[in-house]
């Protein structure tokens, strides 16, 4: 369990990393989504995650007291220093894949934020309370799409099931201590969607220790290139 009494810098950074990396992935959809409404929705998801990351990094810097800013955390750390969960760094794949990843993450966040709302740190409790409301709206959207895809055409169903199967290996790390609650919630939606809960026991982890899949390095190279090449660059 996370110790809510004395949140450490590492906790803020880990959750900040989850939100930043997912925001960066979602941003890759902008101008490429299947419909305008979905393009705007995914862009809005990305903005919410980016905002949460910025608030958490800023707070981490305040607690650490070493003068690091949100930009230092986002732009000046290398792959092994990022402690995000492996699932958020996975490539977007097709629309079903992006929605399944987001749905899994939203269910996790629906369990996480209420816990952090009880933090002794008022700033963290405030960030968590707002993120919880945003996440509830995200989860409505992704739950709706899981059902629409799973219960849709043969092709939509096949793509949704493939996405669920491919991403399953990252979900034990994602849910952590909340695995049972997470699986119950996910299973009920997959059931409504006519999708099968995978029974493959293979699971990967290491994100929280900075051991990542090959995809994170490429994402960071693109995200950080400008700031690294021209330090302290401003618009």
């Amino acid at each position, binding site marked *: 369990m996370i110790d809510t009494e004395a949140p450490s810098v590492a906790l803020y950074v880990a959750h900040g990393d989850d939100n930043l990396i997912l925001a960066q992935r979602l941003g890759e959809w902008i101008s490429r989504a299947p419909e305008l409404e979905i393009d705007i929705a995914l862009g*809005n998801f990305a903005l*919410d*995650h980016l*905002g949460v990351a910025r608030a958490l990094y800023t*707070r981490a810097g305040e607690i650490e007291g070493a003068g690091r800013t949100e930009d230092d955390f986002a732009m000046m750390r290398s792959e092994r220093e990022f402690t995000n969960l492996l699932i958020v760094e996975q490539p977007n794949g097709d629309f079903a894949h992006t929605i399944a990843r987001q749905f899994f993450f939203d269910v996790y966040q629906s369990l996480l934020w209420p816990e952090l709302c009880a933090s002794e740190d008022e*700033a963290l*409790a405030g960030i968590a*309370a707002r993120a919880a409301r945003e996440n509830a709206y995200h989860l409505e959207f992704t739950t709706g799409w899981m059902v629409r895809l799973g219960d849709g055409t043969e092709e939509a169903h096949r793509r949704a099931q493939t996405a669920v199967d491919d991403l399953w290996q990252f979900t034990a790390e994602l849910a952590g201590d909340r695995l049972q609650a997470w699986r119950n919630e996910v299973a009920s939606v997959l059931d409504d969607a006519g999708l099968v809960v995978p029974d493959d026991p293979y699971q990967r982890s290491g994100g929280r220790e900075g051991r990542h899949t090959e995809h994170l390095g490429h994402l960071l190279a693109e995200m950080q290139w400008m700031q690294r090449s021209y330090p302290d660059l401003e618009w």
Partner: protein
Amino acid sequence: MDAALIPGSGVVRSGTLESKRVEEAVASVVDPEIPVLTIEDLGILRSVEVEDGTAVVTITPTYSGCPAMRQIEDDIRAVLDRLGVAKAEILVTHSPPWSTDWMSEDARSKLEEFRIAPPVASEDVLCPTCASDSPRLVAKFGSTACKALMVCTSCGEPFDWFKEFR
């Protein structure tokens, strides 16, 4: 409880005569995405304090990812600069978090005049043009983070709904 911690309690001001002008100017900064509303109407301005020529302004974001925050900070700085305030500090607070309960009653009527449905539960939204109670949700995410897109099934007019967020 401190008055600033209760939704709808308005902006904390330092109250001295010399600072009144500064506080009113800051409170009149408008939201760049919904320019009929000031930052005071929206409830994102938490406090304005002026002491010894330094203004300390505290604001809070609506949605975590509201892209207008930076613009609002710049606009506040510009207002203070025009008034000749030598030093300005803008603080961003996350506690207590913003909700639509922080919006003023004034804000709700201004939104309606601007043909944006004010924040109420989705099933209670009225068409801001014909007041019909049967709008249809077109897209959960609209032109800004805080709005969704609806269309009136009675008069056919599409409109933005400022989502209830609490």
